[in-house]
């Protein structure tokens, strides 16, 4: 990662480049979350999506059909996240442990 780029190209990076802005708001690591593109059905990790970072926000698009999957906008005191382009996200979480009897059936 080396983001000190000249602003003269049509720059696309990998979803991994959005890791920082997503980590500001999500407790789980987002770049290893799986996503499904609602337009074409492609299933990919966030880190493998196509990232447009030289814009007023970060735009993550499908590598297969270019649909907008996620958008993140960082304001002074707010961060907006749009996931309309996704059918779902799947996060890795810890396996639930067995509780000590409190879960009465």
């Amino acid at each position, binding site marked *: 990662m080396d983001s000190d780029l000249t602003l*003269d190209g*049509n720059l*696309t990076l990998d979803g991994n480049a959005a890791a920082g802005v997503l980590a500001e708001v999500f407790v789980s690591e987002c770049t290893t979350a799986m996503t499904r593109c609602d337009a074409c059905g492609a299933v990919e990790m966030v880190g493998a999506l196509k990232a*447009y970072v030289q814009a007023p926000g970060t735009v993550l698009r499908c590598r297969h059909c270019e649909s*907008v999957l996620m958008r993140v*906008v960082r304001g002074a005191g707010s961060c907006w996240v749009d996931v309309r382009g996704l059918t779902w996200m799947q996060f890795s979480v810890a396996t639930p442990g067995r509780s000590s009897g409190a879960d009465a059936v």
Partner: protein
Amino acid sequence: MSVFSRGFRGRRQEGPPGRVPPGQYLVDDFPVLSAGPTPETPVEEWTFTITGDVDAPRQWSWEEFLALPSETITTDIHCVTRWSKLDTVWEGVSVDTLLEGVDTSAEYVLAFCDGGYTTNLPLEDVTDGKAWVAVSYDGEPLEAEHGAPARLLVPHLYLWKSAKWIRGLQLLAEDESGFWEALGYHDRGDPWQEQRHWGD
């Protein structure tokens, strides 16, 4: 509290008084911002359309569009990502010219573009000599990454309103948020009032 970095200034430059809105810094180059792949619509397939809340839609081919009276505009531009550029020179067709004779009660417009980008504006922000559809920059046809063949130019608002790769204007009775306005960005975007985000 921030840690100051000894001797760090960045690439920004000071501007002449009164020319640079608050929170903005001057640049010499012309940064390219894009939220998607650069559309490359051949001019033979390009049209410009006025649609929506109008008596009858209008449409121009590229050739017809170039035959419209055009103006040279010298203006400062301000991007919400905090760079400003002074005395940029454009050539384009005034939106007033495009709306001539259009009968509408609409108060808003939604600019729509190749690649799916949209941005919304009050009609009064694109009329009375405030907005153009530009086809050239600095004496040359627009470059693809700067919006070729044509982009909106609304220099008194933040540059995300000056939609690249524009294909037309939809006139609307009710305001309808565009690509960035639907996700945190201000509906109007006046740089002198720092209208960057919702609530600014």
